[in-house]
């Protein structure tokens, strides 16, 4: 029995002597929640981070934040400089949003992406976004009395992903970055005096920002990209506007012809409900809904094709046709695909069904 006590003597001694390394508990560190990077010149760029400040007497919704900015040539250098300005060690683990300004994004953000993926403490559900303007400016503005900037921007993106904006986060972006035959995209944000808008979608060729579409078109992109359950679309029909709310749409990709002369067909099935019009009553025409459906079908098909045409022109593949082809045919050759993609033939086949028109006819 004494043996057991002896067994534990080295245990305690070693713990006491050797384990005395420094430990910072949660209130002794500065938790970065948002970071932004701006382009300065070919070598240098500027990093801005925001750190929330919590104080004892304002529990819950404190709005005070601290901002640090530093410029440098490498990320490490910037982090070292930022660290120098802070009274507490900066912790990256809880970063929720990362912003890049347009110029930086045009110059390749691969190295920043690599850093995010390499750090074990950073999650995979970080939102990345491109900023029209300066990201420093965007971070250092207070938008709301009750919400911190990081949370506000986070909320703007999260909320829109539930609606018209396609799903995006660090994982999705890096998935597309690494995948063969797929390109990533990020939200494009713009700051106004007291709020932030999603201006559109920024499309990337690997790590470079090359193309953008306005936010109004993001519904079109989203129905092509993924199955969705929310979002709404306006139709103009006979001088009136109708809003169709999407309650469920599905997309399927069909490969009609293989790698030699690729031909794709995108099949979109959309169920919607009509929930707003600019007129007082719907016309009594029994075929009216069918007409509305066909109009929406035509509009969507047209918009989709236009958008795909633009993608081909810019030689980007955010839908991931290459990836689709790879999974459908044997012996997929990525280099060959890269050559052919701009000339690939793509059809869009939309089926719209308006299920309900609300509780008045």
């Amino acid at each position, binding site marked *: 029995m004494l043996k057991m006590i002896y067994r534990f003597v080295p245990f305690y001694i*070693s713990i006491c002597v*050797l384990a005395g*390394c420094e430990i910072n508990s949660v209130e002794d560190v500065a938790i970065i929640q948002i970071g932004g990077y701006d382009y300065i010149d070919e070598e240098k760029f500027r990093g801005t981070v925001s750190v929330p400040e919590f104080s004892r007497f304002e529990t819950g919704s404190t709005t005070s934040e601290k901002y640090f900015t530093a410029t440098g040539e490498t990320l490490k250098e910037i982090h070292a400089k930022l660290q120098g300005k802070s009274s507490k060690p900066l912790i990256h*683990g809880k970063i929720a949003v990362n912003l890049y300004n347009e110029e930086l994004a045009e110059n390749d953000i691969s190295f920043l992406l690599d850093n995010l993926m390499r750090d074990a403490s950073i999650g995979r*559900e970080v939102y990345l976004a491109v900023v029209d303007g300066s990201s420093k400016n965007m971070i250092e503005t207070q938008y709301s009395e009750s919400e911190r900037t990081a949370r506000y921007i986070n909320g703007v993106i999260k909320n829109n992903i539930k609606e018209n904006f396609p799903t995006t986060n660090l994982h999705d972006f890096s*998935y597309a970055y690494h995948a*063969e035959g797929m390109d990533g995209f990020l939200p494009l944000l713009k700051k106004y005096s007291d709020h932030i808008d999603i201006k559109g979608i920024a499309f990337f060729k690997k790590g470079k920002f090359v193309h953008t579409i306005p936010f109004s078109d993001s519904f079109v992109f989203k129905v092509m990209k993924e199955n969705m359950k929310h979002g709404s679309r306006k139709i103009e029909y006979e001088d009136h506007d109708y809003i169709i709310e999407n309650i469920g749409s599905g997309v399927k990709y069909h490969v009609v012809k293989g790698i030699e002369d690729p031909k794709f067909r995108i099949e979109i099935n959309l169920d919607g409900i009509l929930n707003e019009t600019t007129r007082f009553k719907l016309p009594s025409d029994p075929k009216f809904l069918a007409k509305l459906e066909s109009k929406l079908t035509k509009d969507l098909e047209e918009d989709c094709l236009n958008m795909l045409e633009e993608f081909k022109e810019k030689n980007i593949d955010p839908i991931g046709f290459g*990836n*689709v082809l790879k999974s459908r045919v044997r012996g997929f050759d990525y280099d060959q695909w890269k050559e052919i993609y701009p000339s690939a033939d793509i059809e869009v086949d939309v089926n719209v069904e308006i299920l309900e028109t609300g509780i008045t006819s």
Partner: protein
Amino acid sequence: MIKPKQSGTQAISENVKVSPTLVFFLIHSMQVGIGILGFERYIVKDAGYDAWVSVLIGGVIMHILIWMIYHILEDSDGDLVSVHNDLFGKFLGGLFSIIFSFYYLLLTLTVIRTFVEVVQVWIFPRLNVWVFTFLFLLLAYYFAAGGFRIVTGMCLFSVILGLPILALKFYPIQYAHLENLFPVIDHTLIEILSATKTVTLSYLGIELLLIYYPFIKKPVSSKKWAHHGVFFTTLLYLVTALVSFIYYSEKGIQGVIWPTISLWKIVEFPFVERFEYVGIALWVYVILPNICLALWAASRVPRRVFHFRQRWVLILYFIILYIASGLLKDREMIDTLNDWTGKIGFYVLLYIPILFIIQKAMKKARKRHA
């Protein structure tokens, strides 16, 4: 004539034996260890996203090996040492047995050092390896010194406590890119087989049955459970591989060192985020039986061969492990260690059918002489 048995089942007292059902846990928990956290990456290098076929083939091979091991042991009614002595004589047989002892020790070293590396990379970059491994080994010693019953107990709890981690696989399925798996079998047989070779390393662990076989009550009825255990492992590896394949892109997964841990990152509950910390902590339970069982088996062999006291062997091995794992410093060395263990493990598995054939041949020859 068949020689008198060296140390048959009778030599081990009934109260240290375990029931045949527990063989399921012994086999399964020894197979699943540190390898499952990162094997996807290695098999993808060989056979792309068709590697899940290799996982299945590997599972089938393990079933065959289990069948062979049972045959070998049933014929001799003892453990590996008595089989060796029977076939190769005392000297050569003893040497072979001691090689196995060192192999088990190497297995222990690999598991513990790789786990410490995971802890270092993911949680505590400034971890004091010497203190940590010391305490971890002390824990393993506590179990191994308790004897086989205690080690088996830990195997049981390891499986039970590890099961909830399996439920986390549902989170990455939300991000599934099912098309990744298609087209099915787009690689040559050679590529798939070479991935099979890679995957067998993750299946290592059944060869410990050679040592603990005499500790099973009614060993014949444990056969069923051993096969169930292997089957469950195969299933687990298959699910793990498939989930990783649909979550990562094929190029992407090759850049991720521990795909399974990275998967846990996206698990989120209202009260806790970033499940990889919990996952790694729970992994302590998963790898502890690996270490304990291998350490126990490693120290059991010298006792059987030289009739040393097992406790002293255990202490000696403890010291060797401690120093060795402290000296292995960086990722490269640990990777090499894993590589070597894999290679040696492969040959050990290869040795089982050879042993099987030799034993059958000897038996026939003896019969003829008799």
